[in-house]
């Protein structure tokens, strides 16, 4: 019988990249030494990967199964205040959440002598949008950098470079984005010699015209 290991609570945090530095290293060293945690780690990893690969389809299923008009979440808040708080959170989540943390190149490993790449914070677009975005925008990330933007669907759909911290989308691409499909985008910064210096998360978005 396996007893509960004190690291067990870290499994999810590790898989969801919520551990950093020493905490992350400690947990990694631990699962090299703890068969129970490693087993759970693999199981949980599989579950998370399946959920990630299913995406919003996982919860949209109910709609197709003959419950037209069902909203994705029908919060049942007990009070009006809770409803308001919930709404704020939903909005915050829509703005902040739909990112693929998992796809950010992982040269941000900490530790002795590890290369630490920077991250670029994206501004927009993210989440569900009423209309195709006119541009991609991110936080300025230093001077004398070239930014390369990638738009993905099942593959790279479009890519372009700029020295500014935003880039306009060609009309042709905007028309394509109106198809309602799920897209994601990412920006990378390169130093003058061509070395990669920083990368953003890959951010998801989807155009869903308001009805």
């Amino acid at each position, binding site marked *: 019988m*396996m007893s509960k290991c004190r690291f067990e609570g870290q499994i999810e945090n590790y898989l*969801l990249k919520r551990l950093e530095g020493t905490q992350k*290293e400690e947990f*990694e*060293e631990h*699962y*090299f*030494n703890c068969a129970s945690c*490693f*087993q759970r*780690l*693999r*199981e*949980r990893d*599989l*579950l998370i*990967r*399946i*959920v*990630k*690969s*299913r*995406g919003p389809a*996982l*919860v949209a*299923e*109910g709609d197709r199964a003959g419950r037209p008009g069902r909203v994705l*979440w029908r*919060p*049942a*808040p*007990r009070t009006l205040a*809770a409803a308001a*708080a*919930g709404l704020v*959170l939903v909005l915050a*989540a829509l703005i902040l*959440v*739909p990112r*693929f943390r*998992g*796809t950010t*190149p*992982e*040269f941000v*490993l900490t*530790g*002795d*002598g*590890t*290369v630490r*790449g920077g991250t670029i914070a994206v501004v927009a677009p993210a989440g569900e949008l009423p209309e195709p975005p006119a541009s991609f925008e991110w936080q300025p990330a230093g001077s004398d950098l070239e930014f390369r933007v990638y738009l*993905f669907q*099942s*593959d*790279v759909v479009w890519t372009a470079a700029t020295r500014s911290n935003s880039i306009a989308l060609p009309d042709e691409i905007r028309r394509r984005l109106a198809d309602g499909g799920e897209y*994601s985008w990412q920006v*990378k910064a390169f130093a003058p010699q061509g*070395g990669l210096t920083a990368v953003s998360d*890959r951010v998801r978005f989807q155009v869903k015209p308001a009805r």
Partner: protein
Amino acid sequence: MKRKQDELDLDEMVARYRPIVGFRVKRAFGPANPDWEDIVNEILADVIVKIRNGEFEGRSTIGTFIYTIASRRIVDYIRLKTKHLRYAPEPPPLPDPQELAELGENAERLARAIDKLKPRFKEVLYLYYFQELSREEVARRLGLTPRRVSERVNYDHKLLRKLLQQEDFFQLSGSRPTKVRKTENDE
């Protein structure tokens, strides 16, 4: 417990640590990087050489010894790779059907089992793992108590464990199937 090199069965050690080293390397490289398998082999070969040279003195566990070698190799690889990253092929974006296919039939079975869950269990999985909200955030979003959210997540985990043990996913040994309590899903 003191262990010496000659007490270690190297084949057994490699068989035991290959999945662990593989997990660690894939985690560091990202799932789309095909180099992981070569690096895992290099790490294990290096471990064997070091053990044969008497570098494993039993001051740490063998797990920590291998972890240290693996971590160093990963750092070296990454340092080399970042110099060429600009020209490296783009990793495919998630969700990646190919990746799921690689997880094999068992993963498909598990995916189907997840699909069959009642919506409230799926919602929790979606918010918790896809959107990566905290338990508290999921609770607020669904108008539940955090405790209730934990119950649903735990239910999902138990179901998963039960399935995995039935299917013998990872050649689990000596663990008995966990009973999935039929509570909330039957309300």
